[in-house]
């Protein structure tokens, strides 16, 4: 049976992914909406829109890495 320490690490890992996930989602939602608006005006902006939209994804990737580091130390 796992001890309480491992349980807390697992909760920490879960929080790291979930909170950063929510944060990226909030950031991407407004950028994405603006990007779709810009694309409606000019199709050529698709590339720029896509790149700008995924910039906040870095946050969740850092969260994922933290989670994995925690998990590996469990």
């Amino acid at each position, binding site marked *: 049976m796992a001890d309480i320490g491992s349980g807390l690490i697992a909760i920490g890992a879960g929080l790291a992914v979930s909170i950063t996930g929510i944060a990226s989602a909030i950031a991407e939602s407004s950028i994405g909406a603006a990007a779709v608006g810009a694309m409606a005006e000019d199709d050529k902006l698709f590339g720029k829109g896509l*790149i700008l939209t995924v910039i906040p994804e870095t946050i969740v990737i*850092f969260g*994922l*890495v933290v989670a*994995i580091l925690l998990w590996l130390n469990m």
Partner: protein
Amino acid sequence: MLLPEPMSRILVVGTKERLPASIELLYGLENVHVVDFSPDEEGFTLGSPLPEASDASRMLLKLRSMEKDLKVDEAKFGNKVPISKIAPTIDTTIEQIEAEMHGTIASKSAMQARLSEAQSKLSLLQPFRSIDLDLSMYKGYGSLDVIAGHIHSNPEAQLMEALGGEVETFTSSSGNFIVVFVPLAKADEAQRVLIQNGLTEVQVPEGTGKPEKIASELEGEISALTKEMEDVEKNIEQLREKHADFILASDEHLSIVVEKSELPLRMGASEHAFVLEAWAPTADVGKVQKAFKDKFQDSIHIEVLEDRSREEVHESKEEIRMEAGMTTAEVSAVPMSQETPVKLQHGKGVGRFEFFTKLLSTPRYNEIDPTIAVAIFFPIFFGIMVGDVGYGLPFAVLGYLGLKKTKSKEWRGISTMLFYGGLASIVFGLFMYGDMLGIEFNAPHADELSWSALLGVDIPRVLFSIGDIPIQLGYLTKLGDVKILLYLTLWIGIAHLIIGLALGFYNMTIRHGLKHAISEKFSWIMIMVGFALVLLVMVDVLIRGFALDFTDIRFLAGVGLLVVGLVMAVKGEGGKALVELPEVMSNVLSYTRLAAIGMSKAGMALAFNFIAIEMLASEGGIMIIVGLLIFVVGHLMIFVLAIISAGLHGIRLQYVELFNKFYEGGGLEFNPLKIERKHTLEE
């Protein structure tokens, strides 16, 4: 292969008598990209369209209105008509069809008008039908007010009470429509009561006679008209079948005539001569010159102005204009005729991936066309993420069918993605993971689910050996070897990014020379390699639990490369390089998604397999069918999700991580004069 095709700028000058024939020739060559003439050159004005343009446009207008009247659907009529059959008599034939259509179309619109009038009258009469009062009874009173309308509840009792009996009401049989006759003096009071009962007032229709009778007459008229309309529609259909091919063919023919005769609008013209500037692939310039010489001998002058080099000239040109005293507004008003069009050159396989490059942006003339990088890396990434024979096979089959059947660019793009991604998934599924539908071919532990146990067939784990290296069905499992997979994806990322930087280095060299390339791109390659070395040490320390040793040669070399590279980058690009430094780490970490998405797929597959096979099917009986159902639905869901997640993330890693290292884009696509015929045949 890597760079867009070399281009040359040519100048064609000739007399106006030769203009129509030259236009024909230019369209026939199909490799001349015309540059719009800028009328600020002395002695020349913009050319004017050839005289046949106005006639053709007039006829085109008639044809388009016929297409609309007859509802000709372009996709349904695919016959190709030879031009010689339509061109000589096009004018008279159009008039003939017009005359033939005229009666039908006119009677159709007259009938439509009558029909909609009858329908609107009927809808007005509808509520009055069940009240047996002549329409003339509703009007012409001096001291009475008539209120008619829909109601929610029956107000009769309330009205009687409020108006002291001085009221006459008629309610429809359904009870939700009422007509009220009240003395003028009490009209307001009646209104109030009626509104309390949810009155929506309607107008009393004009006319005399019993509403029921008028309405049924109208209904008769409507059904007669509808029937007549059907006949007219049949007529129109006959006309459509008869003339659609001609109409579509003439439309196409005349559109081509108009396009060709409007080409002079893009040329310069003097009183007797025309001048045209254009781009052609350098390799084809000889062909263009020869074609003109064969047709016109020496009476058309054709000259190669330049063979465009890859060096960046655009910026310096703008600077020259600025120095010449032009304001910024004037500079930007000068047309970009210097922009070299870009013609990508690929074989059939790689060419299919052009869609993904162009979706982002067309490459510039002086940069590496990234299509080949997408064609190599996208399937690999897709394969690593999906990595399952059970999904790879249907992906490949779907993609193959799509490439065979579909025509539209978007569907072909998606089919390309599925086909090559599917093939890569099969390869990775067989040899890297040894997986089919989340179940391994041959599980290392006897108690795990595997195909060999399920089917009762012995599937060998080692297929064959090359030298001492055994080729196995699967080396890793997506859920069991997470550490190794994550580690592997980091190195894939580093390799991918270094390739991107190397391409950027090459771009910079051909544009601005080696010196710029070293300070702006090679510096980043050094930083990346330094980071990779430090990463090795970090993995040892953080994950394998070794003590940090500052004298480790990898650590020293890594930090050294990082620092030197950073200094060079700051010198080359300024302080912005410092801001970009953390991006190195986030870029590399971004590739961990390759493992993470693979894990999520495998996790879902594991859950469905467990439910379907171990929980349900092992019960036997009806449960086998339920288990099978869950198995199919579950895997179908994963399959669909795989398109979205693996496809999207696979392409995103190209666009965001790789392309950012070298790709600028925003080029002008090579768009030669060319005629595409769908409904006509040229002989």
